């Protein structure tokens, strides 16, 4: 049982508070990812869980036990660092065995554990080599293997893929996800890459300025962001955020942007929207919610024409990222690669408002969720 509980956890350096009273419950065997921009306190939080940074206030429990003052080595955790932190003078085998050696584990056990971890990670052929001969991906596997041999209840991974090239990062992402399923351990993973977070996590913790913004499943974060920061952080290309005014049209509400009316779907809570009638809000619309033609699978009442000026087309192979300007705002639309457009000319698109987000302009919190 390796659930982790953070209650009003904070970290201060003199007058500077870098983590503000975080509350977080991580279930046993869960893969949770802390994500956020640099300096948001995600690594500090991880290091406090690891016992590498002292906890300034609050409670940290692992498996139900209060571990605020428990040394790192006694917390039954293993950590994988961004730079792998392999000992350059030791072979891969010795790097992996080091933790067990320190604990004076029997040699047979060490051998069995190292061999098993090496087989799992497909690095058996590297066991007698030194890190200097290994590629980034191989080093990363060794670092994972070193964490695995101790058979810990909790794995803490601090941006383990940041030093890898894009292709290898993609491969290792899926391997770590598979590894989590195989090991059935609790994984706490820190990254600033929202693609990593979206593809691997059971739940994502979005952090900003030392505070948790939202904790939810990847899809929920994408579909129901609680504020502008989460909406903007999750998704690539990022969500288009436009100033709009709410107006009533009969029983329905519309968001007016650049003199273009975008009907708000009827399934949204009208009472919440009504409070903003006549007021300016921030309208969020994802790039994939623009279409060159009306899609057949989306109800007509959710579709509205949207006119803009085409600035730049970025062909991505499977799609085109079309940079457009409307109302003095730059927007991005994800369109079919077959869609032909003349740069500098007006382009008529269809906006699917069924998935739009509305945010309070002052508090930046979602009006809908």
């Amino acid at each position, binding site marked *: 049982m390796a659930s982790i509980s953070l209650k009003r956890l904070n970290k201060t350096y003199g007058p500077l508070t870098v983590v503000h009273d975080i509350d977080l419950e991580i279930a046993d065997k869960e893969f949770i990812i802390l994500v956020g921009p640099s300096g948001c306190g995600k690594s500090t939080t991880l290091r406090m869980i690891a016992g590498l940074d002292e906890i300034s206030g609050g409670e940290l429990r692992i498996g139900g036990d209060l571990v605020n003052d428990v040394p790192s080595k006694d917390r039954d955790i293993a950590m994988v660092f961004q*730079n792998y*932190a*392999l000992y*350059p003078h030791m*072979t891969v*085998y*010795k790097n992996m065995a080091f933790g067990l050696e320190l604990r004076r584990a029997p040699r047979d056990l060490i051998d069995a554990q190292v061999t098993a971890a090496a087989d799992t990670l*497909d690095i058996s*052929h*590297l*066991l*007698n*080599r*030194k*890190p*200097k*001969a*290994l*590629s*980034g*991906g*191989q*080093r990363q596997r060794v670092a994972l293997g070193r964490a695995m041999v101790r058979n810990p209840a909790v794995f803490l991974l601090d941006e383990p893929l940041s*030093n890898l090239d894009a292709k290898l990062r993609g491969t290792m992402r899926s391997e770590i996800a598979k590894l989590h399923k195989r090991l059935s351990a609790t994984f706490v993973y820190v990254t600033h890459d929202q693609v990593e977070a979206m593809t691997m996590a059971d739940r994502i913790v979005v952090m900003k300025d030392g505070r948790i913004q939202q904790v939810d499943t990847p899809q929920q974060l994408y579909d129901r962001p609680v504020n502008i920061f989460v909406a903007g952080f999750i998704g690539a290309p990022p969500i288009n955020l436009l100033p709009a005014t709410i107006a009533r049209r009969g029983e329905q509400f519309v968001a007016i942007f650049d003199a273009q009316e975008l009907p708000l779907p009827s399934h949204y809570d009208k009472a919440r929207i009504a409070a903003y009638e006549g007021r300016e809000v921030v309208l969020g619309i994802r790039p994939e919610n623009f279409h060159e033609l009306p899609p057949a699978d989306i109800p007509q009442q959710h579709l509205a024409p949207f006119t803009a000026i085409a600035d730049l087309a970025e062909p991505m192979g499977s799609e085109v990222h079309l940079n457009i300007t409307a109302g003095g705002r730059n927007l991005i639309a994800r369109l079919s690669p077959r869609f032909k457009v003349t740069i500098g000319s007006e382009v008529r698109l269809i906006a699917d408002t069924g998935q739009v987000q509305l945010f309070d302009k002052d508090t930046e919190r979602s009006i809908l969720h």
Partner: protein
Amino acid sequence: MRWLRDMWTKEGPGIPKDAAKKHGLALFADIICREWWEMVKLNLLFILASLPIVTIPGALAAMASVSVALVEDRNVYLGRDFCAAFRKYLWQATMAGFIMSSAIALGIYATVTYASLATGELVFAVPLAISLAVTVFICVLACHDLVLMVMRDLPFGQRVRLAALASLAHPLPAIGAIGFGAALWLVHILLYPISVFMPATLNFSLGMFAVTFGVHRAAVESLSKVTSMRTSRESGAGAVARRSMNANGGSLRCIRIQSPGYSSESLPRSP
């Protein structure tokens, strides 16, 4: 200090899993390049362990044990493995070392004697050739015996028989390895005093590694024969046991076949 940082962070070329395996001299050079520092430490350990003189055979066996691990690309905890092997093989190696070194000394004495006689009478060239061949054969046999000793626990007689068979089957790699070891010492002598640190740093361990590398394949083949013989004997015994069971109306009788001193370690890989 950048080189120090690079040691930790700079990525290497990587080692492909399906890369073609090196063989022969390429593998020999590759292992030396990779493990040269381990060999320096091994050399120092050997010198330390040999200081009481009478412990030289034990130290040689311990060095051979570590060298076998290097040849087989197994992980080595140098100090711990060396000491463990030294303790384990001290008596066996001392006994075998006494017998082998006596035989070699006798062979050298006979060769030198016949060589001096052959200068006077040509008829002594025949015993000279025989004694020289026998001495070389004993040297090769001693190399195989030492490596077999650290690869598998076998009774002395069986081990010597296997070593003799291996020496007959594959004498050239062992002779080459002995020649390599001799060349190391020759270089040391020729380049003295530039090479003054060679014995303290590499000569013993590199020489032993060369011997181990040279005889390893033959040793593996000999041991695999023992294993196959043992397996066939066991399967034969199994058939006897089954027949016996049938004769006794199905009552179970345990028949245990055991080769004395034969451990159940898996066979080492051949380089």
